[in-house]
């Protein structure tokens, strides 16, 4: 038997309906309909909103605001967001990218959620119906929606092309589930020394996480083999890589420093 879909005009109304329990928010359907198809009995219905603001992508100066219902395909077509296309295009095949939303990606469990790894490196703000949160705080308390309402948008400073790097490692090309993913924002001074670094990792926990030890180790170092050595040595600190049919946690942990090093030196 199918589950009933309730449609609301605004995010506020949808948030109220969600709080009544059981129903799950329906974005693109790639997570929640899949879960229902797999027999997840915890889901008792769908809630969605048709508010057109949730599908909008606004770029004002260097600041981007992407509605939670914007798809990966729409991001990959937005010329102002070219520097992060690689992350949007890392999500699934063409059909999935036409459906998968920014909001949904925030909730995707590892090994999915590659775009959120990029948002984490970008230091995005997650806008909800009743609150705005840093992406770090949002991810830490992701499964508790009380007090924040549904996610309506994310916003971030568009990075310079040479400061944002993204890598998705998969076994199947060009579309495959992640072995791991890495996103970095690295600002260097005129001498090429790292002034600031934010590093997001995917598949290194049940959700995207920061590599804080490596961020600290990069600061003040040049992006050379010797300069990044300490960061590479500690990139796995605080991680708990997942084990799934794609790769074991041990394997993910072993190859993380290799791919991290290649990404920094690329």
């Amino acid at each position, binding site marked *: *038997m199918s589950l009933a*879909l309730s449609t609301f005009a605004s995010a506020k109304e949808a948030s109220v309906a969600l709080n009544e329990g059981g129903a799950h928010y329906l974005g693109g359907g790639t997570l929640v309909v899949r879960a229902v198809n797999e027999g997840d009995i915890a889901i008792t219905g769908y809630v969605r909103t048709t508010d057109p603001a949730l599908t909008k992508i606004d770029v004002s100066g260097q600041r981007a605001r992407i509605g939670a219902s914007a798809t990966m395909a729409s991001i990959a077509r937005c010329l102002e967001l070219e520097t992060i296309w690689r992350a949007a295009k890392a999500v699934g095949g063409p*059909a999935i990218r036409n459906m998968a939303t920014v909001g949904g990606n925030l909730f995707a469990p590892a090994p999915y959620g590659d775009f959120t790894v990029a948002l984490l490196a970008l230091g995005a703000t997650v806008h909800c119906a009743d609150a705005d949160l840093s992406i770090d705080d949002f991810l830490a308390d992701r499964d508790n929606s009380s007090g924040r309402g549904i996610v309506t948008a994310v916003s971030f400073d568009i990075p310079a092309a040479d400061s944002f790097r993204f890598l998705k490692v998969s076994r199947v090309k060009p579309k495959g589930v992640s072995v791991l993913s890495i996103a970095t924002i690295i600002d260097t001074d005129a001498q090429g020394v790292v002034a600031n670094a934010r590093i997001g990792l995917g598949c290194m926990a049940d959700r995207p996480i920061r590599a804080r030890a490596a961020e600290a180790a990069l600061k003040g170092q040049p992006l050379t083999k010797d300069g990044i050595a300490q960061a590479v040595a500690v990139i796995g600190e605080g991680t708990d890589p997942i084990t799934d049919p794609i790769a074991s946690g041990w394997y993910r942990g072993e190859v993380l420093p290799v791919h991290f090093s290649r990404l920094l030196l690329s």
Partner: protein
Amino acid sequence: MARIPVQFRLNGDDRAEFIESGTTLFHALRDTMGDMSPKGGCHQGSCGACSVIIDGELRLSCLTLAETCEGAEIETTAGLGQDGVLHPVQRAILDGFATQCGFCTPGMVMAAKALLDRTPNPSREDVVEAISGNICRCTGYEPIIAAVLAAARSNSQNAG
């Protein structure tokens, strides 16, 4: 459960149906509307066998709720041939012996059509990317890629 009305255009025909709320487009097409061309593979969004084109974009009918398609233009493999003449992608797949067991074929055809609608002269890499969400367990990707490129050349010659 109460049934709700849904209207959309399916392969050029206006359709009005009553469906259970929450029914996937895949089940609405096959069980209610008699269009058996989308195939049910994984129902997880992984295999692409159920691919259809909704308002010009390739989507997975197994993960799309039918009532979210209200007012949409939906294309399936069943509607591609006109007056007994196969669509160029269908013709090229047939001529190129690219069907093998055939289960993935409807989804592959829709993925290829979505590509050629947007990129009439694709590169090989474009084709590989376009069908990357469609799994063929006969491992028949090379003939399919060749067929899509042949269909593009055929379209180009006909247009010229």
